[in-house]
């Protein structure tokens, strides 16, 4: 933890009301200001105690505090460094260690995820049992979306009009396995807007989960491999449709800063969120009317970490007959936060319930978000609320439907109601 970064905090407290755990529990050590104080204690020689690790682990890493901070504190950097220190210095309970090992051996690997799709979808019935064995397993069973049909994307998709750009596409691990229809929609939208899309077939994990959990060496390994993959694909712009992945890829140069060769290669690639890229490119394809009411959810790693708030709203708002609605407390995290809803299921559940309440209050037909984690989390929470089913979709799918003139009924998936 860099003492210089800690010093930037002037203790004004502006971050407190945007911090999900402070909103839940109202205590200083579960606020960004308090956590920075904990980091400061560690820098000044206090060892990582169980209590300290607990409060640092409880941080979702949603970066809402970074948006709120008038002093420009780099809490994102600080928490990343801190998580690495906690991983090295803190000994977790055997249970926690086992669960973490399982998650990190599964999620960053698409083939393993694919093998797990069916068992996970079936595990819904076993949820009460799994919950008793371990809360993380219970949370996984609750969150799992229905097993979708496998979609195979070709290595290159040509533009459907005069070519305006050539881009690479990151297909993502969870996005690719659980939401392949989102990748398919993304490719169609890009092609209709005049892009050649290159989809390297054997791309791995971007490293986001590892980076956001303090597994530095693993994160760097994934980062280097992803950079090499897109270099080989011959593109200089990589479009990403999962917020968590996009935010960590934009940080590659900083993550690899000790390795000048690699950080230079990272800087040579342009990473763009889909919505950000489409707005920069400007629309050319015709938008057909899509009479549907949409509640747009700000994924933290898009809004706070990448500052992409206006672009998705601009894209959705430009669709004729689409009624765009705002969700109250939009800056507060839904509790998904990468692996958070697996490792901190209780806090994640409370935040999910809070978010679901506000999403349902909009009365919208469809929830749209740009992160697979948020989508699964909010869908699970609305099911728990038991107030009917809420359809969920990605920004790309809504655009795709409008560009192709499909009916709004074609949009979104509803996962089965949990018993």
């Amino acid at each position, binding site marked *: 933890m860099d003492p210089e970064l800690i010093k930037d905090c002037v203790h004004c407290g502006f971050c*407190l*009301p945007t911090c999900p755990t402070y909103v839940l529990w109202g205590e200083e050590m579960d606020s960004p200001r308090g956590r920075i104080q904990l980091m400061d*204690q560690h820098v000044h020689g206090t060892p990582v105690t169980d209590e300290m690790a607990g409060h640092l682990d409880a941080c979702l890493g949603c970066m809402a505090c970074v948006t709120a901070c008038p*002093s420009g504190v780099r809490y994102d950097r600080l928490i990343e460094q801190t998580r690495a220190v906690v991983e090295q210095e803190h000994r977790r309970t055997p249970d926690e260690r086992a669960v973490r090992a399982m998650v990190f051996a599964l999620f960053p690997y698409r083939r393993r995820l694919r093998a797990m799709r069916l068992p996970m979808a079936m595990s819904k019935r076993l949820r009460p049992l799994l919950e008793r064995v371990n809360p993380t397993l219970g949370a996984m069973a609750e969150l799992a979306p229905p097993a979708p049909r496998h979609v195979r994307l070709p290595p290159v998709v040509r533009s459907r009009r005069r070519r305006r750009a050539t881009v690479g596409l990151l297909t993502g691990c969870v996005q690719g396995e659980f939401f392949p229809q989102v990748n398919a929609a993304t490719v169609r939208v890009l092609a209709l807007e005049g892009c050649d899309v290159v989809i390297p077939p054997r791309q791995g994990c971007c490293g986001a989960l590892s980076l956001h959990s303090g597994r530095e060496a693993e994160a760097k390994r994934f980062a280097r491999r992803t950079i090499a993959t897109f270099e080989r694909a011959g593109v200089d712009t990589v479009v990403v449709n999962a917020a968590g992945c996009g935010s960590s890829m934009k940080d590659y140069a900083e993550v690899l800063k000790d390795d000048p060769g690699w950080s230079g290669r990272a800087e040579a690639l342009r990473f763009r969120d889909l919505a950000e890229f489409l707005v920069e490119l400007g629309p050319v394809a015709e938008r057909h009317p899509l009479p549907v009411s949409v509640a747009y959810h700000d994924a933290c790693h898009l809004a706070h970490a990448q500052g992409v708030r206006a672009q998705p709203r601009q894209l959705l708002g430009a669709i004729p007959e689409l009624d765009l609605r705002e969700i109250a407390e939009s800056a507060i995290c839904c509790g998904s936060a990468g692996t958070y809803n697996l490792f901190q299921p209780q806090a994640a559940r409370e935040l999910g319930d809070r978010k679901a309440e506000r999403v349902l209050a909009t009365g919208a037909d469809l929830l749209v978000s740009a992160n697979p984690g948020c989508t699964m989390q909010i869908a699970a929470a609305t099911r728990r609320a038991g107030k009917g089913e809420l359809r969920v979709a990605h920004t790309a799918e809504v655009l795709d439907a409008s560009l192709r003139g499909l009916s709004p009924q074609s949009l979104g998936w509803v996962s089965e109601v949990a018993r």
Partner: protein
Amino acid sequence: MSTLQRLTERLGDILDEGSVITDPVRLRTYDCDGLTYHRATPGVVVLPESAEQIAAVVRLCDEYGVPFVARGSGTGLSGGALPRTDGVLIVTSRMRRILEIDIPNRRAVVEPGVTNLAISEAVRERGYYYAPDPSSQQICSIGGNVAENSGGAHCLKYGFTVNHVVGIELVTPQGEIVELSDRDPGYDLLGAFIGSEGTLGIATKITVRLSRTPEAVTTLLAAFTGIEGGGRAVSAIIGAGIVPAAIEMMDALAIEAAEAAVHCGYPEGAGAVLVVELDGPHAEVDHQFAAVERICRETGAFEIRVAASAEERAAIWKGRKSAFAAVGRISPAYIVQDGVVPRTALPEVLAAIDRLQEEFGIRVANVFHAGDGNLHPLVLFDDTVPGQGEHAEAASGRILDLCIEHGGSITGEHGVGVDKSRYMPRMFSEEDLDTMQLVRCAFDPKGLSNPGKVFPTPRLCGEVPGVRKGVHPLVESGMAEQF
């Protein structure tokens, strides 16, 4: 076992395990409020959820003679919530329910941990708001506002917390739950309690007045080459009989900080900017706006911007409201001062502050509520350089001297707290201070409620429980009687 340990053991009867903090690592996170210059790790922290719990904790403190300090969101800028190492810190951050909204009577009843802005947000759709608006309104608690009698940019026209709180339920330093109201005949105890900085008890329920959202609001940003032009404009506007909702000024250094933090895009080359907000009925606002614009041009404004939408207004205010914390971008540490001078003395005092900067070789950024002469000089220093903190303290003390010399005050809205208690004797005679102690003793004879704040040295009923230091001079001279 220490007294505090014995008391702590009994806290379990009042609060659940998660609401009593004794772990040293956790306790340290409560060691200061918004003023980081003073730090003390509390003996124990409690997070109560009801007035009854607070009363029970305070009764224990009374029984054991242990001091207690109340804290809301910990954003105070005078160290008013600085904990006691030998005492209990009572934090109200879990008491954040809005209990009642009564639009026909324009009242809302809230718990002390509710943030200032949350009240306005809860009633905005119905066309109302809570008027006092400290710059930290998104996080500062209403309980803290009551303790400090907080103000804000719009207090020029609408008044301070004391003008907008009509009733309080409080826990006295003996642990009784008492209600005070502005309808009570007799002494204005409500007025005495508001702004007492936690020395007379802890507010547990606050009834606030709601104000109607003005029909029209116009915000104007005028840029001047220097601070003198802005000062002249302020005097001329008030002199013309206009009472704007707010008149705020920032100097070049404060603008630099705000630009760095929030990219507020204030006009380039501005040595000072003036933010003037007018509100009220359309006709009145239009009329006043024309006058203000003319005055600004006449006094040398080189650029005037008018906010055409709520977003543009927010953009203008963003620079101003984030200015304090934004100074963190241009300096490792700073002291926020809070002096008041008569409006007419503004140019003279600002020039004197300029000279102080040269004398001390220290930078001072100026952000202030120009309309009511409430200065917020930010004295910048580097806390890693030994001695610079003391040097900055000395400079900021001199600024307060300037305020007093010009017939002003050492605090406009941040309170005295621990930070400025030593300046109290520069403003008040010993007799004045003793008289204030009589009021304090009437509420808190044992001196357990936030001791060490506001007053420079313990006197009379004293900061030390049970020790009485002689007869009060007023009693001795026969002017007062002690019961």
